[in-house]
């Protein structure tokens, strides 16, 4: 139980009327403390009872008209006190004026009223006394200390059922479990109520603890964030965990309870506070504790599936160090959290699935050394994290799927020697990492799919002798790596698809004698390697397919090199299936090459070479 001492409280008045009867409106007034008060009696709205008796004899009861009440304040009379003077002037003018009750804990209540009497007297043994009677004329507006300065924000408390209604009109109060919540009253004093006017979308009220439950299909409430937006802190207390976030929410409609109705860290709101103006750590902790005391789950430590929890929460500017130690599935968890600039070292030691986890976190400049040792699926995990300038040496030793894992991490200038020994799929893994100037000798010995793996890594000047012995698909693998000046003698003995593999590697001058014996498709493979002059003999002696369409178009092959290629194709004996060869640029073949062309054409090949033979 939280008790507050009465000592230290006081009453203030203002002769003015606020522009709006909200905390912001009242806070804008100039206030004068009423001196000499010894007590502020209790006050607040009371409804008359309306009854209707059925023939059954049961008396049905309803709320009638509200009366906002009255108080009589005992005072030590001081004719020079500015606050008492305002009361006396108000009595004379019969004007409605503003009152502010301040409690010792900083909580404030605003209310409008009229001074109906200001009686004065005296007695032996006491100071001269007065008593002022005030009749209140409007509903009071209670403001937590966090909003006293007129700060904008929202405070939603599902455990205050009086703030909930089934419809936006407020005419059907929420009373029992499963009632829809179409109106969730804002308790910050700012009238930023959360509402829903589409019948299928309201969350439902649940008890034990009291909460607003979202179906994660289409349910959400909408708060209209006022001009200026909210830049500050959000404390979100759910049935699965409670945490505080830095937020930057623009003016306009804002989803409460799930981005688009789909993504939410839990399944129900117990309480949510958003304040324009950052809370201190102590304030956040106090609000979290307050929500937890009212039924929210404190920690995310029991959650195993974080799938899509914060997906599309682009308003989050900082993420807390929550307990994620039980998490096994982090798929999509922070996808498109595009305002996060850093990420905390959360415990992901049990995590197996990280697919899309940080995709499109495009403002992250660094990433912590989290424990990913159990991670199997890193599919698109850091896709488009294009502000990352470095990447830590995380444990990826169990990782199998690295499909598009670092795609378009275009600010990475280096990459660590992570353990990728279990990796099978490296498709597009480092595509468009355009600032990488070197690449480590990672273990890719289990990799079968290198489709577009390093495509458009335009700053790579060299490439390591990685183990690609299991690689089958090298389609577009190094396309556009136009700063590579050399290429290593990697093992491509299992490779079948080399479609555009080295296309536009325009700085390569020579090429190694790789094993192409399983190769079927060499379509455009070296096209636009415009500096390529030297190509080895016998490289295609054992290929299994004849698709060399435009394979050497726009190259600079020497006559020896083009002869080497044509003779090697003859040696392959390909006489069925696709049989197309293309070369342009560089030298025309010699008579040796022309003889090879004749043989190829006799086997059904279509051959195009420099010089037009």
């Amino acid at each position, binding site marked *: 139980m939280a008790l507050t001492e009465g000592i230290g409280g006081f009453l203030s008045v203002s002769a003015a009327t606020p522009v709006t009867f909200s905390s912001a409106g009242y806070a804008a007034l100039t206030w004068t403390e009423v001196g000499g008060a010894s007590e502020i009696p209790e006050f607040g709205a009371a409804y008359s009872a309306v009854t209707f008796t059925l023939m059954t004899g049961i008396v049905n009861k309803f709320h009638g008209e509200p009366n906002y009440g009255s108080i009589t304040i005992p005072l030590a009379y001081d004719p020079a006190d500015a606050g008492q003077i305002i009361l006396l002037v108000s009595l004379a003018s019969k004007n409605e004026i503003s009152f502010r009750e301040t409690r010792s804990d900083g909580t404030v209540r605003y209310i409008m009223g009229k001074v109906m009497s200001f009686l004065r007297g005296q007695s032996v043994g006491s100071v001269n006394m007065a008593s002022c009677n005030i009749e209140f004329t409007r509903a009071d507006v209670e403001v937590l200390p966090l909003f006293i300065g007129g700060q904008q924000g929202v405070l939603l408390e599902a455990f205050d059922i009086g703030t909930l209604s089934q*419809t936006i009109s407020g005419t059907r109060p929420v009373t029992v479990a*499963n009632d*829809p919540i*179409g109106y969730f009253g804002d308790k910050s004093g700012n009238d930023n109520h959360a509402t829903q*006017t*589409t*019948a*299928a*979308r*309201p969350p*439902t009220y649940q008890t034990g603890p009291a909460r607003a439950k979202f*179906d*994660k*299909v*289409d*349910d959400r409430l909408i708060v209209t964030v006022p001009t200026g937006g909210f830049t500050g802190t959000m404390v979100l207390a759910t049935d699965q965990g409670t945490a505080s976030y830095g937020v930057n929410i623009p003016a306009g409609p804002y989803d409460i309870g799930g981005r*688009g109705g*789909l993504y939410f860290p839990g399944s129900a709101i117990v309480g949510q506070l958003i304040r324009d103006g950052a809370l201190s750590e102590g304030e956040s902790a106090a609000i979290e504790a307050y929500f937890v005391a009212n039924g929210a789950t404190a920690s995310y430590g029991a959650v195993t599936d974080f799938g899509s929890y914060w997906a599309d929460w682009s308003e989050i500017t900082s993420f807390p160090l929550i307990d994620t130690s039980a998490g096994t599935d982090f798929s999509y968890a922070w*996808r498109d959290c595009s305002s996060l600039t850093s990420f905390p070292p959360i415990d992901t030691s049990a995590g197996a699935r990280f697919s*899309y986890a940080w*995709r*499109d976190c495009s403002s992250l400049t660094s990433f912590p050394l989290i424990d990913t040792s159990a991670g199997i699926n890193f599919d*698109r995990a850091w896709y488009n994290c294009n502000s990352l300038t470095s990447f830590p040496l995380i444990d990826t030793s169990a990782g199998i799927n690295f499909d598009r894992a670092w795609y378009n991490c275009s600010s990475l200038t280096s990459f660590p020697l992570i353990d990728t020994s279990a990796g099978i799929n490296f498709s597009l893994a480092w595509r468009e990492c355009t600032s990488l100037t070197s690449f480590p000798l990672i273990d890719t010995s289990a990799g079968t799919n290198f489709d577009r793996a390093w495509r458009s890594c335009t700053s790579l000047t060299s490439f390591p002798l990685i183990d690609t012995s299991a690689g089958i698909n090298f389609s577009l693998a190094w396309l556009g790596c136009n700063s590579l000046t050399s290429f290593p003698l990697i093992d491509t003995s299992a490779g079948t698809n080399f479609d555009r593999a080295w296309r536009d590697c325009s700085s390569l001058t020579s090429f190694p004698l790789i094993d192409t014996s399983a190769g079927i498709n060499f379509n455009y493979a070296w096209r636009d390697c415009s500096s390529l002059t030297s190509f080895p003999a016998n490289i295609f002696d054992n290929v299994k397919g004849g698709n060399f369409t435009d394979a050497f178009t726009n190259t600079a092959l020497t006559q020896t090199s083009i002869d080497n290629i044509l003779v090697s194709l003859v040696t392959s004996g390909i006489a069925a299936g696709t049989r197309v060869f293309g070369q342009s640029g560089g030298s025309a073949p010699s008579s040796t090459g022309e003889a090879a062309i004749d043989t190829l054409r006799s086997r059904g090949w279509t051959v195009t070479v420099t010089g037009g033979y």
Partner: protein
Amino acid sequence: MRLTIACPDALRDDANQFAMILGYGPDDVQTYVALNWQDAGGNLYACASLTVSDTFTTAAQSGLQRPAWDADSHVNMDAARRAQATLVFSLTPVTAMPDKLTACAGDDALATLAAMGLTQVEVYV
């Protein structure tokens, strides 16, 4: 009772007219908007889930009347009736179909959608 409804892409306009009759008012034209779900065949659906009364289910399967709020004839009654004609209502999950408005009872909306053969669409490629 919680009812989870899968509306195929082609029926969205008609189904939103139907929703205005069964729901609160004109804002219910936004009931089926985002095509966030798909079946095994790749057909897209907009889905909704809500708690309903027996009155709702009865009304959904009875002759449709223009709602009292619709004095200005916002609701296209013909479209609403077309949507109603495709309605499949079931107390247990049934497979969603691309030419039916499929409504299934079930306490857990996500579990019901899964049982209807629907998965969340991967928007990104």
